[in-house]
Structure formats: structure tokens, C-alpha cells
């Protein structure tokens, strides 16, 4: 009897989760459908919900219209560089804010949070002016360097480290003679892995999909990122949306791979949890 109750409970959990799954993936499914049809099929009413035969033609059109491979490689480079810097700098700063006391800590942290609250749209023009004078307009430096360390990631790492990094571990590290940076590297980072995974996933996706700033600051047609290239498919009056969908679909696949790799860090393993503490 208890077994029946348990399996009913389990099934109902799956049922609820599956409803959520259906809602979550339906637009993605539709995006895939759209990329296999023609633009006419997309706007038909009722819309076409099944796969069509036009995927290859649409992909071909994308490859003819924009420099997909080139901008793809550019974007990989920018995203990887950005993610590595962010993981290093943010985890170090967040770890420090969470676990160490020092004069000015509170004020510095408030400043950090404050910068996070300034609307980005305000900075577009002056940041462009700075880039122009550094000679970085048109260069990927303008994309990567200003965001190498950011308030979002430091805040996140601080919050996470507060709960995850235990003081006794730090004390043990100190007794072993670890300096600040070695504490971060040997004591902090191992327990911060899930947090790093999230920040890595988020940063790479954010960088990959970032559009407005790259559009503004990249001015060499041969050195643009994927989102800027994809936006070139939008026409002045009308747009071939099935082609756009095929292009965005191709641009999405790497993100799913990044997620699959990163999310392996979130393994609810009770045994591992036991060992850790």
C-alpha cells in the first residue's frame, strides 16, 4: 500500500514537472519548426506546427547572406575569454568579500552593488567615447575588457561563498600556511564549483547573445560577433524569418553544449555532500 502511495506521489511529481517542460520547450520546438519551413508557413493561420523540408535551404541562405563561420569563431573567442576572466576575478573578489574582514569592506561592497544598479543604456555613448580614444573601437577588446570583472558575478560569488565555504576549512588552511590566494585556490574554489558552473554558463550565454554593445562598437564588417551578423538578416522592409530562425538555431547549439557541460556540476549526490561537510 505504502509503495502504491509512493509511486503515485512520484508520478504526480513527474506529471507536474512535465507540464513545466512542455511550456518551457514549446517555443524552442516552434523555433525549430519555423527553421524547417518557409516564412509563409510561419505566418499562416493556423500556424504550421510540424516539420517542413526547408531546413537545408534556409541554412544555405544564411551561409550565403552572412559570414557565419567567421563570426562564429569570433564569438567563441570572445565568449571563452570573457568567461575565463569573469570566473577568475569574480570568484576571487566574491570569496574575499564573503570570508574576510578589512577596512572599507562595507562601503566598497555598497559601491559595487550601486554600479550594478546604473542602467546600462546610460553608458552607451560615453563608453563609446572612451573606446574611441583608446583606439579599441572595432576591436574585441572593447567587448571583453570592460566586463572582465563584474558586480553581478562578485555579488553571486559572495552570496554563495557565505554558505558554502566553512570557516573551519579556512582555519585549517591557514594552519597549513596558506596565503590568501592559496586559500582561494585550494579551499575556496573546490567548494565553489557549482557556483562557478552557474556563473560560467551565465557569462558565456550572456556574452554569446549580447547584441547592442557589440553592434555599436564593432565597425569592421569582417570582425563582428554572431548576434550582430544574425541581425544583418533583418531587412529594411521585410525579412525572411525562416532563414533567421535557421540562423539562430545554429547559433543556439553551442549554448546547449555549454549548458550540458556546466550543469554536470549540479549533481545531487547525497554521499558527496556528506563527504564535503
Amino acid at each position, binding site marked *: 500500500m505504502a509503495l502504491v502511495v509512493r509511486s503515485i506521489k512520484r508520478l504526480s511529481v513527474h506529471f507536474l*514537472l512535465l507540464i*513545466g*517542460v512542455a511550456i*518551457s520547450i514549446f*517555443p524552442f520546438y*516552434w523555433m525549430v519548426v*519555423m527553421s524547417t519551413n518557409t516564412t509563409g508557413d510561419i505566418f499562416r493561420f493556423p*500556424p504550421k506546427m510540424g516539420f517542413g523540408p526547408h531546413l537545408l535551404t534556409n541554412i544555405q541562405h544564411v551561409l550565403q547572406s552572412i559570414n557565419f563561420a567567421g563570426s562564429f569563431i569570433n564569438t567563441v573567442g570572445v565568449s571563452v575569454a570573457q568567461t575565463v576572466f569573469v570566473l577568475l*576575478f569574480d570568484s*576571487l573578489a566574491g570569496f*574575499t568579500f564573503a*570570508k*574576510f*574582514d*578589512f*577596512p572599507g569592506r562595507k562601503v*566598497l561592497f555598497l559601491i559595487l*552593488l550601486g*554600479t550594478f*544598479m546604473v*542602467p546600462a*543604456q*546610460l*553608458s552607451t*555613448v*560615453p563608453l563609446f*567615447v*572612451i573606446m574611441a580614444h583608446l583606439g579599441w573601437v572595432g576591436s574585441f577588446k572593447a567587448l571583453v*575588457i570592460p566586463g572582465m*570583472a563584474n*558586480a*553581478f558575478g562578485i*555579488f553571486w560569488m559572495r*552570496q*554563495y561563498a557565505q*554558505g*558554502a565555504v566553512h570557516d573551519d576549512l*579556512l*582555519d585549517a588552511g*591557514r594552519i597549513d600556511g596558506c*596565503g*590568501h*590566494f592559496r586559500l582561494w585556490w585550494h579551499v575556496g574554489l573546490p567548494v565553489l564549483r*557549482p557556483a562557478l*558552473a*552557474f556563473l560560467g*554558463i551565465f557569462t558565456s550565454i550572456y556574452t554569446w547573445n549580447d547584441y547592442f554593445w557589440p553592434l555599436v562598437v564593432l565597425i569592421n564588417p569582417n570582425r563582428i560577433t554572431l548576434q550582430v551578423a544574425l541581425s544583418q538578416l533583418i531587412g529594411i522592409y521585410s525579412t525572411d*524569418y525562416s532563414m*533567421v530562425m535557421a540562423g*539562430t538555431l545554429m547559433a543556439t547549439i553551442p*549554448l*546547449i553544449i555549454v549548458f550540458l557541460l556546466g*550543469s554536470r*556540476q*549540479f549533481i*545531487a549526490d547525497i*554521499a*558527496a*555532500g*556528506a563527504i564535503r561537510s
Partner: protein
Amino acid sequence: MSVTGIATGREEGKGRTWQRAAGYLPVYASIAPFYILFAVFGLFPIFFSLYISFHSWDGIGPMRFVGLEQFEYLVTDNNFWISIVNTLVIWIMSTIPMLFLALVIAFLLNSQIRYRGAYRVAYFIPNVTSIVAIAIIFGSIFGNHFGLLNSVLHAIGLHQVQWLNNPWGIKVAIASMVVWRWTGYNAIIYLAGLQSIPGVLYEAARVDGASTPQIFFRITIPLLRPVILFTVITSTIGGMQLFTEPQILVGNSGGPGQAGLTMVLYLYQQAFTKNLFGYGAAIGWGLFVIIVLFSAINWRVVQRAGVR
């Protein structure tokens, strides 16, 4: 959660300030990259935007100093107040269900449930679905006359709603787009947070005969508090700066009755479609003040809720 720190270790005895300062060096070096980058790339834009908010400027020609005129106009500008109300309403409609659902999903996905890897991917998918696709799809779902949602309402015998012509319909549509896009993302944050909770705590609770809801409210939530605080603050800032969702659903105008005009959408509209850079900057500063106030309130609320 106490703060240890080098200070406590070294303070006794040697009181000489230079030595203490040297002791802090690695600490300051650790947080320095952010502040250096901020000094180089962040300070000038802040002063610059403050500067242009005292001017009338179309971005092309010369600036004209107008003193506090932009701010005087701002506080009397009905559209700005509408945008504040819209933003707050949409924030409430989206953030509360979003964070609650995310927490539940993360909790379930953290249990020993089958297929949780597949679930994780599925819930994450909205975050990588392209914005162009989302615009078309949500337009089709919430269409006034030929929307999928209206087809469903019709099929089950309910009244159809002109979603995107109705002030509440627009807000519901935008809020549901936010919930759809960001629930999985927040669930991933919580899932990461859950990894720091020692499994033994759950085991001990189960041995004591605690039910799942009891475990959720007595163990999971309290231990997740720093991470919950993070999501509340980031969703506050993100919600106050809501832009993409209303823009793709109702355009730069904010839609009928300006029901979807959020604060940042208003800023963008004024600066980049009407060339009013000075006024755009003033809106930005008004927005900044509201974000700071609202974040401070939410910070307090979450911290208090934890004290109990």
C-alpha cells in the same frame, strides 16, 4: 556565517599600521580588478550621463545647458510615472511566481528523481531560445484575434481576450514572458545553491521523520538564504530595468494605452528614437534612484524574514 579574516589572526601584539596594511594587501588585490575596471570604464560614463542630464542634446549637434529643466520635466511627466507604475506592476506579477516556481523546481530536481538531467536541460531551454523567435511566438500566443491562447479559451467556452489591446492583458503577457524566460535560470541558481547544503542534514531530518514540505521550509529555505537574497536583488534590478520583453511584444511605444511602457523602454524611446539624449539621461537617473530604494527595501525584507 561569521566573518573570520586575517585581521583577527594577526592583530594581537603587533600593532604597527604598515604591517597591518601589508597584511591586507592580498585582500585588496583580490577585489582590485573590479574597481580598476570601474574607474576606467564606469566612472566617466556616470559623470558624463549626469552632465548631459543638465543639457538639451539631440546627440548630433551642440549641447545646450538647461540646468534642472530635464528633472523638473521628469517629475511632471505623466509618461514617466506611468512607466514606473507599469514596471512595478509587471515586476510583482512576474517576480513572485517566478522565484517561487524556480525554488520548487530546483528542489525537485535536486532530489533523487529520475531523468533529472533531461529536466534540467528542458527548463533551461527558454534562456537560449532566440529573441526573434520569442517575439514571433509570444505574438502568436497572445494575438488579439487569432492568438493560440484565444483559440484555447474559445475551445473551452470562455470569453476571448484582446490581450495586446488591454492594459492588463499586456501586463499579463509581458509578465508571463518574463516568468517563462527566467524561471529556469533562477532554478539553476537555486540548484547551484542547493549543492552547498550538506546531504547529511537531509538524511538526519528524514530519520527524524520530517516530511518533504517540512524539509523544504525548515532546512532548504533557511540555508539558501544568501542565494535567495541574491535572486531577489538581481530580479529587482533586472525587473526595474525590464526592456527586451516589452520591446519585442509591444514595440518602443509601449503599446495601447502605453500599458507596456517600462522605465528603460521609455529611456530608450526618448534617447534613441526621439534623439532626446539629455532627457534620456535624466530618466536614467530617476530610474537609478528608484532601483536603489527598491533594492534596499527588498534587501531588508529578505534579511528580516531570515531572522525570525
